[in-house]
């Protein structure tokens, strides 16, 4: 599971400076997990990226007053959309995993119904993966990574 990188913070440092540093670290974490995220054979990749997206969204909301509002709103919306798309892929991953575990404990007579539900969840996983691929493409086209770094830069530049 994705462990958040510890970030050194100074209690007395300006909120804006902390915002810039924290957003840079959480942004790097998000995009590091992008490799192989569409590979359904390794469900931990999408899990790690999803957790990273939640952490990034959370710090954007925590440090919201430090950012230029116009840029901030669009970036937060894009991060939310990415987090939602990762969630749509992740939910069937989790469900399939749990159903497979459950099925192992069942008698032969009870297995077909659960297998049927697993098939249903696999179809959902495929749809989720297609939607995620489209969202990742959009993230790239809209330059989300670069915009996040620019947002951190703007917070830092505004230090009085």
């Amino acid at each position: 599971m994705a462990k958040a990188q510890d970030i050194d913070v100074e209690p007395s440092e300006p909120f804006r400076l902390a915002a810039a540093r924290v957003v840079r670290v959480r942004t790097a974490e998000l995009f590091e997990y992008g490799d192989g995220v569409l590979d359904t054979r390794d469900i931990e990749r999408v899990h790690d990226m999803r957790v990273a997206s939640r952490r990034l969204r959370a710090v954007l909301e925590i440090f919201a007053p430090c950012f230029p509002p116009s840029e901030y709103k669009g970036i937060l919306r894009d991060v939310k959309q990415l987090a939602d798309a990762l969630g749509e892929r992740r939910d069937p991953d989790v469900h399939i995993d749990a159903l497979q575990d459950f099925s192992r404990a069942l008698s032969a007579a009870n297995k077909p119904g659960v297998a049927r539900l697993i098939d249903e969840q696999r179809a959902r996983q495929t749809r989720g993966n297609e939607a995620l691929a489209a969202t990742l493409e959009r993230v790239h086209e809209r330059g989300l990574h670069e915009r996040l770094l620019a947002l951190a830069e703007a917070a830092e530049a505004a230090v009085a």
Partner: protein
Amino acid sequence: MKARRVKGLDPDGALADNAERIVRVRLDELCGFMPAAADPDEVVALHDMRIAAKRLRYILEVTGPCFGPYAQKATKMVKNLQDLLGEIHDCDVQIPETAAFAAQLQADDAAALRAAAGDADDLDPALLKQAPHAREHAGLAALQTHLRARRLLLFDRFLELWGDYERKGFRARLEYAVAERSGASIGAP
């Protein structure tokens, strides 16, 4: 659930001063879901409490070091709570989904059996063996029972965990941790 607005944040102020304000509001939000969330039928309150736990966890994850050792411990406590509430939420999502899926297979089978009966006066129970999903109903019924039982168990664990946090003075100790830091920053002895 929309997060409660935190008043008085100052981008040019110290990180710890701002973090303290956020932690206080997020902690109050989390604790505010009790006792409503102690009712097992309050699915929405439980879900919202999970979101509130997540928000508190993330602010503590980033700014916990400003508030000393108890804040670090509280981060783990909130994560454990969030994880448990997440497991309960999964049950709350999967129980109706599984029921709807099972109901759809039953409806499909009923339609298929009706067609197979043709112009018979009544439905022959022996036709059940021919139902397209005849072998699948038992497993789905077992799964629904499992999910309901698991939800009951996890909810009991949630009540125990929250009771344990209350006995240990979770809220008061975290409030004390952020207040102590606050006193130090303004030059208090």
